[in-house]
């Protein structure tokens, strides 16, 4: 049990961060506004969780301009994907 708990990632304890990673696992990249509608959160809330994941090295972003408006696209890093898989496996083990 203790071993399994160690595999749970603190970064994914939060629902919103979990949601962000879920979306980035199945999509190559997702932009800020899409994440916002998908998760139903406010700009500030989403931004802080994105920053948090970015600091852990789990996601990266690319800024561009879309119709002259700034647009930020997020991608999961290899490290982020590996940690997420580990986290899900731990969750599943805890349930069985």
């Amino acid at each position, binding site marked *: 049990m203790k071993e399994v708990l160690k595999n749970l990632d603190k970064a994914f304890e939060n629902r919103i961060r979990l949601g962000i990673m879920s979306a980035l696992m199945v999509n190559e990249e997702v932009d800020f506004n899409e994440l916002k*509608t*998908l998760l139903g959160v406010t700009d500030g809330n989403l931004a802080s969780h994105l920053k948090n994941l970015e600091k852990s090295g789990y996601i990266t972003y690319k800024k561009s301009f879309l119709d002259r408006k700034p647009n930020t696209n997020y991608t999961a890093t290899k490290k982020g994907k590996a940690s997420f898989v580990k986290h899900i496996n731990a969750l599943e083990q805890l349930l069985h």
Partner: protein
Amino acid sequence: MKKNYSEDLREIRDIMQRSSRFISLSGLSGVSTGIIALIGAFLAYQIVFKDADFLVYNQVQLSRESLVNLLLIASGTLIVSIGNAIFFTKIKTQPHEQNAWDVASKKLLVNLLIPLASGGILCLLFLWKGFVGVLPSLTLIFYGLALVNGSKYTFSEIRSLGVIQIILGLLAFAFLPYSLHLWALGFGIVQILYGLVIQRKYKS
């Protein structure tokens, strides 16, 4: 504690699905689009093709009036079909308070539109050069390609629907005199059947 973990997993699954597949596609829109297509094919047959000699199909000269009629029928069918698809999607997303215009629906639309728009432009060019006979075949093939391409972003059944349309399109070219019948079969009958299957399977 345990409940929390299973909720986490459910949330993950939900977001993965919502962000990658458009599941608000309504089976009913398939059924009604099929009916609209049948009406369109019937009108086209009555107004444009009825008096044409199908044995020399590829040499049929369309009068200016027939051409205008054909274009009116085609664009009318297209507009009513699109409006109808939007209407049924709205109905299906409203009670769940889902946003129909999300990541997945955008992806589906873009992937449908690439083959569909290129096929549409090609058809207009063929029409412009006077090759009316190839249009039923080409529209079927490109519609099928669009469905196969878009199927990754919605129900997986759409893929086989696309393959059927492609085969019908090729048959329509091989048997030119029957191409309008095959068009009605593909866009009409097959589409209605698939609409019913999807409606039954994903009712909720």
